[in-house]
């Protein structure tokens, strides 16, 4: 399965942990696209930096739209308001580092 890598910046009222991020992303995908959607998108957390509030997620190449929409639908993580903005999408992890 061909994959894409998405770099995300997280802005929240309180700090977000790796577990909270993964849970929120999976819950959003299941809520709007169902269990089948989750298995098709197949998101996988590659990197999470709580200090910089950045994350890199890998997902199936054919489901970029669903992945972006699921991220947009996340408005809360735990009890605090959160926004997750995509910064860059690339076919390789190395490509995310290039400007």
């Amino acid at each position: 399965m061909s994959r894409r890598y998405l770099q995300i910046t997280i802005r929240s009222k309180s700090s977000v942990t790796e577990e909270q991020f993964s849970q929120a992303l999976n819950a959003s995908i299941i809520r709007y696209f169902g269990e089948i959607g989750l298995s098709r998108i197949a998101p996988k957390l590659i990197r999470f930096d709580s200090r910089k509030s950045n994350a890199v997620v890998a997902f199936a190449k054919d489901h970029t739209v669903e992945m972006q929409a699921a991220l947009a639908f996340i408005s809360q993580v735990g009890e605090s308001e959160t926004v997750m903005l995509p910064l860059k999408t690339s076919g390789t992890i190395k490509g995310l580092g290039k400007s």
Partner: protein
Amino acid sequence: MVKFLDLHIVPKIEDESSCRRMAELLALSGYQAVGLTVPTGLLRDKLKDLRECFQDSGIDVLIRADLTCSRREELLKLLRRFRPAFDIIGVRCTNHNLALVAARDRRVDLIFFDSARRNVWLDDSIANVANAAFELNLSILLERGDRLTITRLMKDVNIALRHDMQMVLSSGGASPFAIRAPVQLMAIAEVLGLTKQEAIDSVSTIPSRIATRNVGRRSGTYVEEGVRTIAEFTEA
């Protein structure tokens, strides 16, 4: 380069830090211009400060008014009064009759439906006569992210597409956490039933056209639709 606009941002005017945060996030998301909804009676000094706050982050500002009323006469009166003073005019449709009048009126740029009133939605009779663009606010989805709302929005999109009605996608948010990147708005548009090109148009081409037209109208050279002053004639 494609220019992205979010025509519906509702800043908290009294809270400068929230405005700065909003501006920072909008710039980070890749927006070039935003439509800021402000109260119609806002003082000029406050407006200037607000404009500067967003312009400091490199974002062009269009001032927008959202008109809310329940009767036709009231709406026409508000349009006469506020159309010349604002770059963008949006009408919150609280009932079907008002939606019909607002959609038909050329002075209205955008119509949108009140998320608190679930009984008023876009229908064929409104879309059939519409001159104004139909605005979909993501805030509705964030407020009530149930399947019913999504299905209803998909129906709205379907009706708008059937009647070739222009569509604009906006955040509609009053907090920095309600801002979404253009690529996210486009993804939601595609999920709701738009094609990729239509989704791109709904966050760039169509809002950009509305903004350019209205800024042109408010310039001193505008006389009426298709008529513009190009030079003053003075007798020697």
